[in-house]
């Protein structure tokens, strides 16, 4: 690369740290910022600063929030009797985009992975148990990822909650809508059969 000033190099390096951004894209982004006028560029800088200074975890559910409680916890129209448990805020966002769930959430901020040194105490399971014990919750919907570690985390939590008067369910899994039965692998078919439901 030809000579650029130190500030430009720093900006390129910062962009290059972002997920999915390689060296070439980082350069393109940096030159885009250079071409912006001062006001436009500072709007971007402020957006980054605001996100770091204002965003925190919701004290109830560990979703991202700009106040003590997130927008979902503050929404009076949500059903407070159901809590859907997810690994990360991005999983919550995906479920929200589906638009069919109207209960509350609980974000674990990870999953139990002993091989990575992640135990239950590093997650937000204590807070979840307190919410169940002290509240009006009737159902917990486990929506951790359908992996060995995600399923294991759900299993652990359902064991912890076994002495609470709450129904624990999990997301259905199985055949993708619009696909062909004959091409589904046997594990997927086994899941679909064991999770069958009444018409």
């Amino acid at each position, binding site marked *: 690369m030809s000579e650029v000033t130190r500030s430009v190099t720093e900006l390129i390096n910062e962009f290059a740290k972002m*997920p*999915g951004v390689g060296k070439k894209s980082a350069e393109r982004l940096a030159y885009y910022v250079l071409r912006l006028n001062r006001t436009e560029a500072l709007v971007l800088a402020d957006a980054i600063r605001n996100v770091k200074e204002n965003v925190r975890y919701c004290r109830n559910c560990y979703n991202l929030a700009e106040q003590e409680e997130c927008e979902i916890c503050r929404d009076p129209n949500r059903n407070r009797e159901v809590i859907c448990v997810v690994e990360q805020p991005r999983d919550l966002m995906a479920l929200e985009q589906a638009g069919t769930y109207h209960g509350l959430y609980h974000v674990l901020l990870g999953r139990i992975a*002993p*091989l*990575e040194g992640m135990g239950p105490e590093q997650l937000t399971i204590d807070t979840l148990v307190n919410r169940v014990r002290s509240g009006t919750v009737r159902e917990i919907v486990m929506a951790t990822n359908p*992996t*060995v*570690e995600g*399923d*294991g985390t759900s*299993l*652990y939590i*359902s*064991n912890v909650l076994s002495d609470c008067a709450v129904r624990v369910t999990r997301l259905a899994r199985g055949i993708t809508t619009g696909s062909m039965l004959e091409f589904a*692998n046997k*594990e997927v078919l086994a899941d679909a059969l064991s999770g069958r439901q009444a018409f």
Partner: protein
Amino acid sequence: MSSEKASALVLRTIDFSETSLVVWLFTREFGKISALAKGARRLKNPFESALDVLTLCRIVFLHKSSEALDLVTEAKLLRRFRPTRQNLAGLYAGYYVAELLGDLTDENDPHPELFDLADETLAALAAGEVVPRRLARFELIALRFLGHAPALDQCAECGMKIDLTGRIAFGGIHGGALCRGCRQGKSSVVSVSAGVLRTMAQLADLETQAWRRIEIDAQILGELRKQEAKNNREILPQRLG
């Protein structure tokens, strides 16, 4: 760089980027390998979600000769680790098997018999078999396959037959049971009951199926677990050093 096929158990996976995974695999044909699986985190990927911890799969991969990561190009799921309902102990035992395979073996050092043992052990654990017995058997036979089998009925040092009564001196670091003469002046030697050594011998037996009938009583189990933890602690530093 050559394209290879292998049977593999997935030991660990780590998110490498937005779309890719790095996986640690214990393969039957090549021993432990670490490989990049490009696109494994995408919804549509060539791996059919076979690259999940503790799954058994058939893989095609590019074996790099240098220090670089291998590259998994295909993976076909053969068996997912699905513990029977509510069986958390079985799942944690499965994690432990993966951890031991990762710690006790080297990259590109195949042990097909250990692979088969691990495969059988994981299948049994997922099916809900009694955990302590299965796990103890796995540990003991794994150590034997890797050349670290402890001596159980003769002195590890002089080979003298040991009378299996009362309490017996045992030093994992010294190779197992020790006679009175050989234990003198050695550190890291503990005393275990004869019952523990007999149980260990039965559990590690590859000839008969008698081990399936062993009922490990609580006291022996306690001693056994302590002994195994100590074995692994002592053998690992030797290997690493």
